[in-house]
């Protein structure tokens, strides 16, 4: 791949040790989303303005504290991309008139959870992409309305138990394909990441940072409270999400989708599912073979499709 030559992040030792994001935030212990944000922030740098929508991360900036070295604007659940539009346009107007200098310019980064990114904010997101807005959208995807106690969201996976899907079968719907929805708009860049694959994440943020136009990063964010696992398991569960093929690491650029990390021998999805309380009902009191098989089949089908395209 040609970008191998230009990336500065080839190994763990290449990752920045700056740790720009301050500590002491009110996020839960083991928050997979916060891991992704702090890794991304180290690469984005402090010349950023985060435009936030209602979600867990809204609680990062609680008066008079903020963990960010740069700026922050809270908007509303539905319209963070429109906030990014206003900020970007106002920066451009002032740059054109010489009221701010190019070195004062900011990278505009929308930061939302899956509730906004997959659902309520889709209308304003679509509008921003259609405008060719120069911004990065960073979605921490914890697969539910986690801030309100993990009710099912449009990003909740099939079969998961949530606060609003407590029956024996779990959530009856299927996780929405936000990657495809974005790609259909033909934006500059779309990528999936996970904090437990930090080199892959760093390279994608680096790439996004150096592009112009609408760019999306979806970070699967293992959530100890919402997914019901011990906070010390976050990294292991994140790794299993990739190893089982449940969370494909990929990117879209110039009309092409590339998988950046293809698990050589996919572990069975059960290894990922059984460690999370939200899937416990699929194993106890007896195994729900139908739903387990359905989830495995979905993953197998996805990768079969990938192999077919790559062949």
């Amino acid at each position, binding site marked *: 791949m040609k970008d191998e030559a230009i990336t500065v992040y080839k190994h763990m030792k290449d990752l920045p040790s700056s740790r720009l994001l301050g500590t002491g935030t009110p996020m839960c212990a083991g928050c997979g989303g916060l891991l992704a944000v702090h890794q991304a922030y180290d690469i984005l740098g*402090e*010349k950023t*303005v985060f*435009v936030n929508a209602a979600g867990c991360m*809204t*609680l990062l*900036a*609680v*008066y008079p504290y*903020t963990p*960010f*070295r*740069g*700026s*922050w*604007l*809270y*908007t*509303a659940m*539905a*319209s*963070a*991309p*429109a*906030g*990014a*539009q*206003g*900020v970007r*346009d*106002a*920066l*451009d*107007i*002032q740059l054109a008139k010489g*009221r*701010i200098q190019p*070195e*004062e*310019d*900011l990278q505009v980064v929308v930061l939302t959870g899956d509730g906004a990114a997959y659902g309520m904010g889709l*209308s*304003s997101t*679509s*509008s921003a992409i259609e*405008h060719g807005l120069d911004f990065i959208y960073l979605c921490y995807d914890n697969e539910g309305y986690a801030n309100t106690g993990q009710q099912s969201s449009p990003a909740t996976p099939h079969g998961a138990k949530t606060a609003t899907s407590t029956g024996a079968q779990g959530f009856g719907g299927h996780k929405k394909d936000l990657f495809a929805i974005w790609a259909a708009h033909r934006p500059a860049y779309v990528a999936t990441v996970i904090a437990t694959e930090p080199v892959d994440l760093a390279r994608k943020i680096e790439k996004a940072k150096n592009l112009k136009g609408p760019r999306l990063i979806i970070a699967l964010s293992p959530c100890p409270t919402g997914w019901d696992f011990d906070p010390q398991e976050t990294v292991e569960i994140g790794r299993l999400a990739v190893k089982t093929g449940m969370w494909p690491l990929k990117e879209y650029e110039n009309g092409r989708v590339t998988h950046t990390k293809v698990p050589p021998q996919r572990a069975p999805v059960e290894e990922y599912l059984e460690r999370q309380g939200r899937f416990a009902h699929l194993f106890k009191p007896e195994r729900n073979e139908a739903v387990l098989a359905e989830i495995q089949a979905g993953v197998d089908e996805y990768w079969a499709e990938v192999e077919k395209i790559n062949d």
Partner: protein
Amino acid sequence: MTRALITGNAAAAWGARLAGAEYVPAFPITPQTEIIETLAGWIDAGEMDCRLVTLESEHSMLTAAGAAASTGVRVFSATSSQGLLYGMEMIYAAPGNRAPFVLVNVSRGIQTPVTLEPDHNDVLATRDSGFLQLHCATCQEVLDSTLIAYRLAEDHRVRLPALVNLDGFYLSFTREPVDIPARTEVEKFLPPFNPETTRFHAGEPVSQGVVVLGGAYYSYFRYEQHLAAQRALEVYAEVAAEFEQEFGRRYDAVETYRSEDAEIVFFMIGSFSTKAKDAVDRLREAGQAVGLVRPRLLRPYPAEALRRALAGKQGVVVIDQNLSMGMGGVLHGELAGALYGQPGMPPVLASFIGGLGGRDIAAEEFYEMVEVTRKACQEGVTPPPRLLYTADELRQMRKLQAVAHAERREDAA
């Protein structure tokens, strides 16, 4: 200065142009659309140095407006009715950021049922938001109020967004002669936008719209907004005086018309007050001591000026072009709150609901309202609220209902 025959919508667009608005997040809705079309035309023709972006909704439009104002540019936007309601979350969110901009609302009744014609339920739904509110009665006032709104909103003592209201159809599509000042004249009155401390740029990080944990902190910030809105009263007086000096047109927070020696006065907002003025003239010719009191500024509420204007009157005819379901007229309730318990206030505030969904108010109805109020004053009993509605209108309504019933029977058959 040039004088031209233009619509209320064009006057609003001229206000934005002369104010040097740099950014216009937009979304079309009847009867406002002409405003953004006019601005877009000027921008495309290179006559106005401004960026107009059409968002996908008023909610996004108002989010972008607030965000751009927080980033340091002068922002203008316009909407109406359902659009204002669709963006309502951001109408309430924007004032707390203390990043001023001007929004024109072209009043139109809200559903259900659907209508395109005006009343004031849309704008009054924003009354508790923290937006300042200026209400216009003429096309000239629309242009001038837009300029005044920027000065008021951007004043260091205020720093709140402002809403300029004009009635759909009656003003939006009605041409009146309007003095359009030159940009150089306006620049003397309205200096370039000063973003003060809120301006996103590298080197000076800012956090906007953050969370507070605890009611006492929340109360503090909310009350600060209230105090800023209240300060806008004295600032308005200063700004209006400067405006008069510069342009020769006077806009008191409360307009009074032949009310000084009046026994009974009309109390209302918006373009229908020009009809009331006409009725006042006719009644004066007939020897009746009648006048008009019209607040231009509705937020902040000019309570003291209203008490001065209404002191010693026998009765007030309060005409509400809105209806708060289960309560009545919004203006009536607010006025009663401002006058109650104060010495020398009129004993009778008669409430009339009229002009809903563009329904006209006829001259005879103005006369009748005065008659009803005069009688109430004599008897010392405040009459119950009344809806302006004629027997003929009810007959027409019954006709439509008969048609609807007949159609339904036919469908069933």
